[in-house]
């Protein structure tokens, strides 16, 4: 594997370039998301955002921090999104910290202080455990992809939700915990692939 994986500090306001960035090379900068959110639509309770995370009455509990920011960074690095996004020549640089949604959605210019002539970003915005009384649970993730090429402003911006069904998570019995954690992490990897497939599709013509 010739692709380098670097971990650098994520700071859009930083004045120093990332220590592992190569000004002459292509770069795909990747940011993980914050910890898990939850939405729940049950028989008798629904609507409280993060009701499961906070252990609200009537909302089924979930294990604490099943897929925190550090784990997401690891999963992103292991999944090689640069290959999935058909940019195998880009150096993968995984930042360790999540960006605020406000930063992600309002930013116009490059979020990393890089002068790379072929620069792109993949950003995890929100990671949501979604449960409803008919379909069960799934892992929904909102990704943003921005391809700048050599420019200061992006040539292409694409963001969408992807989801993967969960059959074991959240675990109902203590002995299911390990399998449930494994499943949600595999769902995260699968969501990366689903997003890349969506990003690679040509834009739909609505005319």
């Amino acid at each position, binding site marked *: 594997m010739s692709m380098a994986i670097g971990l650098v500090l994520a700071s859009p306001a930083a004045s120093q370039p990332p220590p592992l960035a190569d000004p002459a090379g292509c770069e795909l900068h990747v940011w993980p998301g914050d910890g898990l959110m939850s939405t729940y639509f049950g028989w008798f309770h629904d609507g409280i955002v993060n009701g499961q995370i906070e252990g609200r009455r009537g909302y089924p509990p979930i294990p604490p921090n099943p897929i925190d920011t550090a784990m997401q960074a690891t999963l992103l690095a292991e999944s090689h999104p640069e290959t999935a996004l058909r940019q195998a020549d880009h150096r993968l640089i995984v930042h360790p910290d999540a960006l605020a949604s406000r930063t992600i959605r309002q930013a116009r210019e490059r979020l990393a202080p890089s002068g790379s002539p072929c620069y792109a970003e993949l950003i995890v915005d929100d990671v949501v455990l979604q449960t409803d*009384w008919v379909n069960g649970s799934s892992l929904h993730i*909102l990704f943003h992809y921005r391809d700048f090429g050599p420019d200061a402003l992006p040539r292409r911006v694409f963001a969408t939700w992807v989801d993967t069904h969960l059959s074991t998570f959240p675990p109902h019995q203590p002995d299911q915990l390990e399998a449930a954690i494994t499943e949600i992490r595999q769902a995260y990897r699968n969501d990366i692939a689903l997003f890349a497939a969506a990003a690679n599709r040509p834009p739909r013509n609505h005319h």
Partner: protein
Amino acid sequence: MNLHRRMAIAIAAAILPASPLAAQPPAPAAPGAAPCELHLWPAERMRSMSTGLLGGGLIDAAIHAGRDASNRSQMASALDSPSQLDALQSLNLIHELGLPEGTVIIRHETPLERHTINSIKTRRADSTARCYYELQTADVLYMKRAIYGRSLRTLFMLRAFGDDQHIDFEYKAWGGNGLHHFPPGEGEDVTVAINELVDVFKANFQEYARNEREASSRRRH
């Protein structure tokens, strides 16, 4: 919006005749007086209700459960607490609500628990300001109906306390407007849909605030 306006007026409640709320233009602050405070809280409850030609009921709810669950997640993301507060603060809240000039806005990033919004009648912030207001966002509701189409509705509540723990004026009402882009199709770019939710959230507040000013003005005259 006639229906929404009627609902807003129907829900509005003024507790005592004397209201510190000013009609337009905003009342000037008394010289030398400590500034008034307006405390903001975002909503923690997001709901989605889709009905088809069955017109509701258990079967209809089951048919749309997946779509409604997905809508909840997308609304929870697009209108998370910072986004709600940012959207409100992008407007001139003091003017919109007809509050005294110079009122200081204080953000609360953590929502109030929904089931306490109606039951707790005292100040929700640890403030002893002699002029104190609360703007609580109670609910965010997406609705899709076979005939009327898609809309986003938001339930707001303004409380004015004066200088004690007693509510002098309360106005609780829905604002609602149509949606054209939300929810996005599977695999589609969601940027426009996210922006639309935020824009309609703001429009809902402005509709609410217009009705609140009218209700406040009627109480004063």
